[in-house]
């Protein structure tokens, strides 16, 4: 069952790096992360990999395997030909710390810009009542394991660091949508999503949804509905008139 596989692993740090070749044993049923751990244990003790659960639940081991953004723990070796050389590189949209580990703090900084859940003031803990069908929409987005593969893949920032100040990425935009769809949240984050988080930059190519290991329909279920709501609010002529004559505030 076992065989030797050829790997090319990106080694280096913030300054520079290169692809280094390793030949390493592979056993039946293994995933890419298993094989990289073998490289680490036997050939390169200092190979930097970020990982935790090895069960697809924590979203730590994001990397690009043969150019595809993947969780290494959920990429099975039997999806490759035995003679194929497998190239593993760090996710591209974020600065490299070392080897396969990148600095993803961008995502945490942007997450802080989304105002938190705001329940009705008089609602006490224990008194919340919500229907299953109403919580399910936001529950889909709360499956997110924060692997940041979506933001890594999004063409708005993937090769465009200059867009990072004005675009929060699909993960954080989905968070705004999640709160917007929470049955008991009282805050309106549409304007924030559009103007501060850069929702308008998204041109719904759905690349983010394609790479999501949780199969969340980020574009269809979070970003497009959010865009529609923004459009309703922004381009509804009555609302526009209302906002001009201050009958109704712009962000209501």
């Amino acid at each position: 069952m076992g065989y030797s596989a050829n790997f090319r692993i990106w080694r280096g740090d913030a300054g520079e790096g290169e692809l280094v070749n390793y030949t390493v044993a592979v056993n039946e049923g293994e995933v890419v992360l298993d094989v990289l751990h073998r490289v680490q244990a036997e050939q390169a003790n200092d190979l930097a990999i970020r990982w935790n659960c090895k069960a697809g639940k924590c979203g730590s081991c994001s990397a690009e395997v043969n150019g595809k953004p993947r969780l290494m723990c959920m990429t099975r070796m039997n999806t490759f030909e035995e003679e194929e050389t497998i190239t593993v590189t760090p996710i591209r949209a974020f600065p490299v710390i070392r080897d396969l580990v990148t600095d993803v703090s961008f995502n945490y900084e942007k997450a802080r810009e989304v105002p938190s859940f705001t329940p009705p003031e008089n609602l006490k803990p224990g008194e919340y009542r919500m229907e299953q069908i109403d919580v399910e929409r936001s529950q889909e987005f709360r499956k997110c394991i924060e692997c940041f593969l979506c933001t890594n893949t999004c063409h708005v920032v993937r090769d465009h660091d200059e867009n990072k100040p004005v675009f929060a990425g699909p993960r954080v935009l989905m968070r705004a949508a999640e709160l917007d769809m929470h049955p008991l949240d009282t805050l309106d984050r549409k304007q924030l999503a559009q103007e501060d988080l850069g929702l308008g930059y998204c041109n719904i190519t759905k690349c983010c949804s394609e790479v999501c290991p949780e199969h969340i329909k980020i574009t269809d279920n979070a970003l497009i509905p959010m865009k529609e709501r923004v459009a309703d609010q922004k381009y509804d002529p009555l609302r526009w008139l209302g906002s001009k004559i201050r009958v109704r505030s712009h962000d209501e």
Partner: protein
Amino acid sequence: MEQIERYKFDVVVIGAGGAGLRAAIEAREKGKTVAVLSKSLFGKAHTVMAEGGIAASMGNVNDKDNWMVHFGDTMRGGKFLNQFRMAELHAKEAPDRVWELESWGALFDRTKDGKISQRNFGGHEYPRLAHVGDRTGLEMIRTLQQRIVALQQIDKKASGSYEESLRIFAECSVTKIFMTDEGENSRVAGVLAYWRPSGKFVLFESSAVILATGGIGKSYKVTSNSWEYTGDGHAMALECGGNLMNMEFLQFHPTGMVWPLSVKGILVTESVRGDGGVLTNSEGRRFMFDYIPEVFKSKYATTEEEADRWYTDPDNNLRPPELLPRDEVARAINTEVKAGRGSPHGGVFLDVSKRLPADVIKAKLPSMWHQFKELADVDITLEPMEVGPTCHYVMGGVEVDADTQAAIGARGLFAAGEVGGGLHGSNRLGGNSLSDLLVFGRRAGMYSADFVDTVEAPTVSDADLQEAIDWALAPFTNEDGESPYGIQADLQDMMNALVGIIRTESEIVEALAKIEEFKVRMANMKVMGGRGYNPGWHLALDLPKQLLVSQCVALSALTRQESRGGHTREDFPGMDPEWRKFNLILRAEGQNVEIFKQSLPMMTPELAALFDEGELSKYMTEEELSSLAQGTS
């Protein structure tokens, strides 16, 4: 000495899982400055892997449930070795902790009338686990993470800085807890940590340190635990004067994946059984009916017909024995496999495909479906899973005051969550871990804040600091030592083989001898490369802690000459009421670890009255029963 980053905080929390984050929130709410130090990124801690739910007697699905029933179930599950006061606080406070999560944005699955839904789980009399499909831990950690962000946003508005009072130090590992040099009055002074990305050291001076470091499962080869679970908190508590208790009690979760080998040990949630899944052997027999122990005879169904009726009519039927506490189920699986009635890859079958329609399975157990499909090519809606025991949880931990979570023997040190000891006795019920994190995380945060008010801010001496730094850098200077990876793999093999699910004196003695050999190998570890994000070095710093904790497990396992909960001795197969009267406590004496017996506190008569005497007589000595009877009369 190299220039190092220095901080002063009121409270330092080590660990950013459920307990650590809940503690940090509470200490911040009490007006303290708080640092949370995490080996991983924010929101990735081990809590994320919890699947089934949070046990809390809200009574949303069955209104007969209340804290007294939950308390009773917890004590039974732990075979009455539990610290009763902790079990009481836990059962009483869990519902408020769950409702609080909801007010912070958690979205639990709902009942028809819009309340939080609750599911059945092993050892729980009524449906009690608040859940979100089978990803409850993720929901919990994300909610706590987002609550921390909410507090930071409040601080930002008030002060201009998100990190005015509450700061997360992600990928910042602690190597050492410092104590002040005040003799008898010695107390916590701070901690030394290093940034994993840069390898640079950071000193935190603080009056209080809360351990929330989780468990020790990485001492075992087959485990559901991630690399982080190296027993850091357990080991550092010992090193700074604290005690450990109940370290012989390890929970081997009955259902881990067994195939393929690379995923062996990964958890298969108990919800599979709670929602109707059954365990069968190679002969197709539902073997759990053969393993109902005497103490649980009156609480579990004896026929398949009755067990099956229970799912729809729990008031008039007894529950299926697949839902016995985890220790019972794990031992039964182990026995079946040893008797040659196992599945092809050395487990047993867990089948939900013949019990529930495919769409229900996918809705209730989405991550299990996903996990088996992606990792094992098994479609659980069509075929059974193969499962076997996996090292999952340590009941033992730092000995603490039941109300305040203050560590006994180390002033200023607190412990909450898995690293704390006592609540679960000899065996933890599923679902009681997430509630434990919330209830006692909050308490640790609250009482650590109170403690800070009673003392002056401490300082760490340069000599202590230098010594700790030298220790941490030693693996770089060893010329011809061994790589830490090989040592860790050998340690895991050894513990699995010699101090595993079934134990015997000769093997534990052998393990203790091997531990001495490991000490020699570890003293001479060598790492390659530099200090920036170097996992080899990180492992070299974790390993000695793992070894110390392994030694504690082996020593306790050798000393307790009975079988109870998560400690099974082949040479002492029975449960002995005489042994129930004691906890085994471990304490560091210089380079050695001492072990001694300590009497369990006696349950109050009010709590004892929650059990009928017939039940208590299965656990307690005549003497204890008569003193209880006097107390209640």
